[in-house]
């Protein structure tokens, strides 16, 4: 992977007093390729490259730190910085509130419905009483899918026989807010070009006043991740990202742009189809995996 390529390159310069420009350019090219292969947005890769190159040429490794480690550290630091730092941001669920409302939004087939149930289990394990609301009137058997997952996780679920998504969300919260202290609303897939669906999302958020709006993003999404994330963010301010399907070989570089463009931190990753396959986000291991 990139680690080995960087090691063999930097072995060449072990004797050098400062890191020479030609070698830095070589290293940066390797990093660029790794990031592009990981689906990081082209412009972001170019911006990052400039910063890494500048730091590599201007900075002196601290005494005793080998050049190789220092170059790698610069790359890691820049990427972790982009993700919002080493600390993972917590979910805004407060047990003292009457009810915490979480909305899951995102493109088609990203894993929203499955993640709703995973998140329910995660919160149940932390002592919360979680309810699930289906607010997807479009997808065939969307309500049935959420019902089956809710049963598996042992959470109350509310579905509404209507073609109005906002009504589904509002009535769902109404129905579950007394018995639950967290309500997770599963919405229909949509994209930034579907104006009425984006409007619908705005109206839904206005009515249910969510404490968390999480963008569910598939790790396989490529160069358009940033644009879509930005559009969702404009419609309803995002408070976080859940990056799914990291159990596959997809690197999830699109998430970097999603974070960079919206400021919404990655809070969880999905690592499989089972309801236990949800982990808290760890920026350092994500970056390590990104660089291969």
């Amino acid at each position: 992977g990139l680690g080995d390529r960087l090691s063999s390159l930097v072995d060449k310069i072990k004797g050098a007093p400062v890191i020479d420009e030609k070698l830095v350019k070589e290293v940066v090219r390797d990093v660029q390729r790794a990031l592009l292969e990981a689906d990081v947005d082209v412009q972001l890769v170019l911006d990052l490259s400039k910063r890494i190159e500048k730091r590599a040429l201007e900075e002196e490794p601290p005494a005793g730190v080998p050049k190789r480690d220092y170059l790698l550290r610069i790359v890691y630091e820049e990427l972790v910085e982009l993700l919002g730092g080493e600390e993972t941001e917590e979910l805004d669920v407060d047990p003292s509130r009457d009810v915490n409302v979480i909305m899951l939004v995102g493109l088609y087939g990203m894993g929203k419905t499955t993640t709703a149930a995973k998140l329910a289990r995660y919160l149940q394990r932390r002592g919360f009483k979680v309810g699930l609301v289906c607010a997807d009137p479009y997808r065939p058997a969307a309500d049935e899918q959420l019902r089956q997952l809710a049963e598996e996780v042992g959470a109350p679920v509310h579905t509404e026989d209507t073609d109005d998504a906002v009504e589904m969300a509002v009535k769902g919260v109404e129905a579950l807010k007394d018995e639950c202290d967290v309500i997770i609303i599963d919405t229909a897939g949509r994209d930034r070009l579907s104006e009425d669906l984006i409007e619908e999302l705005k109206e839904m958020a206005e009515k249910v006043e969510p404490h968390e709006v999480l963008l569910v993003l598939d790790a396989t999404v490529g160069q358009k991740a940033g644009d879509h994330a930005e559009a969702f963010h404009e419609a309803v301010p995002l408070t976080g990202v859940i990056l799914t399907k990291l159990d596959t070989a997809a690197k999830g570089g699109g998430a970097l742009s999603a974070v960079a463009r919206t400021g919404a931190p990655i809070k969880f990753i999905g690592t499989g189809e089972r309801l236990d396959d949800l982990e808290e986000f760890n920026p350092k291991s994500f970056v390590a995996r990104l660089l291969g």
Partner: protein
Amino acid sequence: VMITREDVKDVLDELELELISNDVAVEVAESIREELEQELIGKKVKGKSEIPKVVERSLRRALLSVLEPEKEVDLFEVVEKAREEGRPAVLMFVGVNGSGKTTTIAKVAKLLKDRGYSVVIAAADTFRAAAIEQLEEHAERLGVTLIKGEKGDDPAAVAFNAVQHAESKGKDVVLVDTAGRAYTDVNLMEELKKMKRVLEPDLVIFVGDALAGNDAVEQARTFDEYVGIDCAILTKVDADAKGGAVLSITKVTGAPILYLGVGQGYDDLKRFTPEWFVERVTG
């Protein structure tokens, strides 16, 4: 005057990045760049000012040659051939989680039904929550037969039943829906391989997501390795997707892209043409 490496280096670098920003996989963009380099360096032109036009023409040719692969597949021809042999055509739909297989099957069912063919759908995703119910709804709306089992049944057995049903009833086509799966899951890929062996389908159709970036290559390559992809359908093209996956998929498997999914409705399936992609990249 002859084109030198220096003459084209910058424009080829730019081209490579342009392909990548269109979601063409890095290795595919690099390989196209190498082909162009080979073709262009040493080529004779009237003057240096000709170079941009020559590069563009070469790019178009390179893209078209990838997108018009050796293998030619026509859905209706495959169905007709099976009919002539007095048996139902079996089309198996495969791909990773959430790529749009089930929705695409509904669209293909409508396409075939509108052409006068009798269609059976096999609900061979026996794993995911409400996968069967999702197809039940589609089948009911479309007025086609659905052959299903119970959640947890052996997928190959359900699909096989559907084929037997189609044979006994003289139906023209069986569309087999399979569970989405990560190609990194060896057990699931082996299960798919077994299903292919049992069904002997006329076509294995890879359903890819146009929103996918580099992963499209690994998806196509691995599915091709395990079950062999005859052709592909790329979905969610309407979702502001670049569509570079068409190049990635065809380059690594030689399988042609037959259709593009351009929405969630039953008619949202349009015939893929190589020009469509070339225009997007060069237009």
